[in-house]
């Protein structure tokens, strides 16, 4: 059935985008042990960077190349200023501080960019759309977004599994003291990981901006969905976040069409169901 196939496409595309946003959250939580409520703000940062930089560079991919390093630097700054004081502390303190960051970032956003929704242009070479049925077309840019997400998934797997820095990250999260004794500066390592999380969220916000519109509070639904993904996938598991995000994407797409009465609770019902069967999440350790 045509509608089912189109919904699978929609679900996968949406899921990949959620994954990009959620991967940073699960990475920071898994390795630093920090519950980062301000993660949605970094998605918002990406969206607004996309707005400003695209008006300067004129191309969303140039913006991505420029904006992600900027977000990375910003992440290092935030880690140095605030987050590094939270390692090993009570999670309540982490929640308080990162929640405060949300309020600060929201106000900064309003001061700098105002409250009107803005739109970011889709590059002309991706403006086309593919005819799916006699009246419905699918914008090529959405496929490009999915493509970028897939590329980033492979980059992440490669970095974590096969590079020296990935090795240090994995070692650091299982035994910080031992890694330090072996001569690795774990402070730098943690700063790198946090900044990478920020950069991933910002990357998601940046490439989603042309299909979304850019408006205040854009990151908050993303934060909540990301938490659901992290819980479904298993805390700290990138692989879990990946499959969790795809599940959420599909549940959302099908829920809206086939169970419209339950669409708003669909993803939470899915989360509850997963937790009943696998309390640690799909790929988590309990």
């Amino acid at each position, binding site marked *: 059935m045509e509608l089912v196939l189109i919904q699978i496409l929609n679900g996968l595309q949406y899921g990949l985008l959620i994954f990009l946003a959620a991967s940073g959250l699960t990475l920071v939580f898994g390795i630093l042990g920090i519950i980062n409520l301000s993660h949605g703000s970094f998605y918002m940062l990406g969206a607004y960077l996309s707005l400003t930089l695209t008006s300067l560079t004129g191309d969303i991919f140039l913006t991505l190349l420029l904006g992600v390093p900027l977000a990375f630097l910003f992440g290092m700054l935030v880690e140095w200023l605030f987050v590094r004081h939270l390692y090993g502390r009570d999670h309540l303190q982490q929640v308080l501080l990162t929640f405060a960051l949300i309020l600060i970032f929201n106000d900064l956003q309003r001061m700098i960019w105002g409250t009107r929704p803005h739109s970011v242009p889709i590059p002309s070479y991706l403006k086309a759309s593919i005819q799916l049925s006699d009246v419905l077309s699918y914008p090529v840019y959405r496929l490009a977004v999915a493509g970028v997400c897939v590329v980033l998934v492979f980059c992440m797997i490669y970095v974590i599994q096969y590079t020296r820095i990935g090795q240090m990250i994995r070692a650091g999260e299982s035994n910080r003291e031992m890694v330090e004794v072996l001569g690795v500066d774990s402070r730098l390592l943690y700063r790198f990981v946090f900044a990478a999380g920020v950069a991933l969220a910002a990357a998601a916000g940046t490439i989603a901006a042309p299909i979304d519109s850019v408006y205040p509070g854009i990151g908050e639904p993303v934060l909540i969905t990301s938490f659901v993904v992290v819980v479904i996938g298993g805390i*700290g598991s990138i692989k879990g976040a990946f499959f969790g995000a795809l599940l959420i994407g599909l549940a959302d797409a099908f829920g809206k069409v086939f169970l419209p009465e339950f669409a708003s609770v669909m993803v939470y019902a899915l989360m509850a169901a997963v937790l009943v069967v696998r309390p640690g999440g799909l790929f988590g350790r309990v």
Partner: protein
Amino acid sequence: MPISETGLSRRTFIALAGAGASSLALPFARPALAQAQPIKVGLLLPYSGTYAQLGEAITRAMELYLKQQGGKLSGRAVEFVRLDSEASPPKATELTTKLVQGDKVDILTGPVHSGVAMAMTKIAREAGVPTIVTNAGADQITRQLCAKNVFRSSFSNGQVGLATGKAMVDAGIKNAVTMTWKYAAGEQMVNGFRDTFTKGGGKVIKDITVPFPTVEFQAALAEIASIKPQAVYSFFAGGGAAKFIKDYAAANLQASIPLWGPGFLTDGVEKAVGAAGNGVKTVLHYSDDVDNAENKAFRAAFKEAYGIYPDVYAVQGWDAMQLLDVGLKAVNGDVAKRDELDAAMAKASFKSPRGPFRLSVSHNPIQNFYLRELKDGNNVLVKTVVKEFPDLTTGCRLAA
């Protein structure tokens, strides 16, 4: 690839994450200056979230009106007490109570969201504070729950729906799919539309709803494409509307299934959607190019003050102040005379940028409705659908 081994149990994690996420919506009330003299006007409006720009537009117009009057109405200074409603109904009772009892406002205005309005007007009715609803279109406020001290400077959802349904019948449309957020405002806009549309011989094939405030529409667009109606009647607002129009155009649906809606679909987001919104037809009680002197003067003044042209929300804020001004003049600035103030506002009749403005017996505006078409980021006036059109007064005791 599980890469985590932390001491935190998942249960704690979920609890903390949940607590954090839900506290996102805590009220961030700002303390108001305690001053005895000025008339205090409370503004319960969204300054954050998807409706933030609507709250700002209303506030700016109200401030502009006051500025033009030299900061005073009927010889008394006026002070605005702003509170962020966050468009969140669960917090509305607490926030309204804060304005009414904490700040002791003399006049209550706002909000944008109908759910917030329901809680706000409930308190207003009990406390007797003269109240002007500056946007929220919940039908009940000027139907079943109408009250002598509650007025509206905006519209009722049903009223806009009724007018849009009429315009679509006039355009020869025979069947349509409706699409909106699943919340009261959306349902009432659809019900009003259904009323005149079906009475005019049209057929509603399907009602599609998405959870508020979701902005992921692809799934619903696929469904519309599979139904292939003659037109889609749709209501979204703010950032959600911008995204919906763009998604609708990107799916190439606009070519074969024209998009219609109440004017809120396009107002305030014209520039954000740009050419993607070309051809979207909407009906509203205001259009940028309404041809009267008040509108021209208002637009020029607003543009000069804020660098952008006003939208319908700004007009509603402006008229809230015009209405209040009429009331205050009648009592010579003495806000303690609530009954006289209310009576004067109920009889108010003045020239608004939207055309003639007066109130029905249930205190909802009797006003013109305009058909507009979006062209390259501008809502262009096509024609006046209906002049001095009142809403139904179903169940209002004032109407009896």
